[in-house]
């Protein structure tokens, strides 16, 4: 695992004292955020903490009411949309596949920022789409309609579309949310491969803390529109952080597979009376959970 990103300002993408919101509702207030080049940055935090809002601002989808987002030393809002799209790829939370579209045609749309009226399908386009299909292991799915694919396959096809854009910066908004655990691992393995082999800088909004710790080299924990802590997972994720960010009592141990922090939530049924757990404390004997949902239960789409 690489060292966490420094806060120096020569990184390609950063937000400077941005204030973000919708209508009159402020979601993020005066936030500084730097995306470390060449790393996987995971943004974590409870629902409605401003994770996706921040990602939208970084991708130029949302204009900050105060402060600025800087891409390659330029104010991102001064850069034309198409030029931004040549440098920065984005996969939103809920992209829509037109009914009946073939996977290859969807991936081909990732080439849009590189195309012109009289240059609709160059050899570069062809090569990039082929490479994107290969990188996401979706070459076999290319001639199938997207709406007939499984959730995991579909998400890989969407990522392939973003890859075909051939940008060094990739922003993914909850790419694993509606996937079962095996497909979540699939997608995150792919993200890690893109980072290690392709040297891409990835920013990913994740719900699952343990997966974030395992796959990201830099974790940013947000709550109520501000950054609580940021850094390498082993440095910043402990029971105190989990408590502060999610309001959740948890035990943090070393992941037996990756040695990264593993957050084990305690939950009310297992809480010891009158004594709050500290890092490294052992949970009481295992009781049978009574159908309670985990701390990051899926199914919340209203998150911004």
């Amino acid at each position, binding site marked *: 695992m690489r060292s966490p990103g420094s806060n120096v300002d020569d990184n390609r993408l950063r937000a400077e004292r941005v204030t973000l919101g919708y209508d009159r509702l402020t979601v993020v207030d005066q936030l500084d955020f730097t995306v470390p080049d060449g790393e996987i940055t995971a943004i974590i935090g409870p629902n409605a903490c401003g994770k996706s809002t921040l990602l939208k601002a970084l991708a130029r989808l949302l204009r900050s009411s105060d402060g600025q987002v800087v891409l390659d030393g330029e104010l991102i809002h001064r850069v034309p949309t198409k030029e931004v799209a040549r440098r920065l790829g984005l996969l939103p939370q809920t992209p829509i596949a037109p009914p009946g579209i073939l996977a290859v045609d969807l991936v081909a749309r990732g080439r849009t920022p590189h195309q012109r009226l009289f*240059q609709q399908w160059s050899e570069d386009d062809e090569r990039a789409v082929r490479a994107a299909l290969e990188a996401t292991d979706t070459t076999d799915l290319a001639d199938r309609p997207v709406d007939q694919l499984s959730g995991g396959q579909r998400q890989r096809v969407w990522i392939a579309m973003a890859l075909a854009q051939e940008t060094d910066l990739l922003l993914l908004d909850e790419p694993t949310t509606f996937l079962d655990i095996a497909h979540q691992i699939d997608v995150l393995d792919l993200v890690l491969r893109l980072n290690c082999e392709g040297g891409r800088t990835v920013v990913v909004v994740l719900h699952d803390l343990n997966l974030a710790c395992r796959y990201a080299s830099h974790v940013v924990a947000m709550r109520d529109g501000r950054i609580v802590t940021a850094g390498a997972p082993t440095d910043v994720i402990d029971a105190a952080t989990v408590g502060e960010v999610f309001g959740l009592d948890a035990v943090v141990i070393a992941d037996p597979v990756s040695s990264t922090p593993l957050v084990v939530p305690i939950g009310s049924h297992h809480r010891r009376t009158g004594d709050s757990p500290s890092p490294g404390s052992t949970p009481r004997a295992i009781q049978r959970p009574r159908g309670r949902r985990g701390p990051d239960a899926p199914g919340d789409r209203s998150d911004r």
Partner: protein
Amino acid sequence: MTVVSDRTAVEGRPVATGGGTSPPAPLPLRGRVVRTRSWSFRVDPRAVTVCTVLAVSVVAVGLWSISVGDFPIPLVDVVATLLGNPTEESEFIVGTLRLPRMLVGIGVGAAFGMSGAIFQSLVRNPLGSPDIIGFTAGSALGAVTMIVVVDATAVGVSVGAVLGGLVTALAVYLLAWKRGVQAYRLVLVGIGIGFFVGAVIDYLITRAEINDVQRAAVWLTGSLNGRSWDEVRIVAVALAVLGPIAVLMQRQLDRLDLGDDTAAGLGVNVGRAKLVLVLTGVALAALGVAAAGPVAFVAFVSAPIARRLVNSPGACIVPAAFVGALVTVIADLAARRVLAPTELPVGIMTALIGAPYLLWLLTRQARTGAL
């Protein structure tokens, strides 16, 4: 020039290879890629075929439509007249009565077809067509106002129709706005506005002079009866200016289909693209209304038919234009001949086609929860 990729080509090679020294199998993209050093296009052979067949059908039905009537003119004479060798009677009947009528029908159908394709794709719902969500009603109100209040000429009626359409579109959009515009809200608000506009039109009619009322009433059903070269000019200008814009915007429309955020991520200027598309779509529908009245359901049925024929997930603007033209020409032929010698307005015929489709669509969407 080379054809590098053909979905229908029999290559006998699996698509998935990856690695190896043999040249990779062609990507299974839709359509063919035509490419030289400096430019490249993707052409869908199926769309080309569909459009050609539709165009031939439009010409065939059009010629037939010119030929038949209370004063039948043999097809040979029709063709001769069109080529500049009229007989005595064919010159008046073809040149003054039936040819402009047919040309207006083709142009209006194409304009409605394109407008429908644009809006149905933008709203992502076949019910988002301008004749369902009140835009054509708004154009009709603008036009009726010009007829009844100002007693305007064809150009004045056109201006009124465009203004009426734009104001209505703006009203529907603002009323449907709630942190962005949801398709179902837009459709419901549009239908409501359509009824409101209809009531205003009725009020204007009751207040108007009897001659104006008759002119307005026939026109309001959507009629090609008595169309002259004035109306041909209106639709010709509309199609010449707006048609190319619509066709050029198709690429961005197809990106918007992936969702606004995704489209923006792909470099589409979402706000500007939507504005241009809405203005183009409203103007196309409005000029169609100015020329022939709010011919019911042509915009509504054209794009879905075109999509099915071309079998494409895209907006199919050009095929929809051809479908719209064909539907209108056939409907007008039927309107003229079904109860001959009485002529029905073409709008009644298109309503006979469109209404059952609307009912079917409503029950289906109600069942699947799409609306």
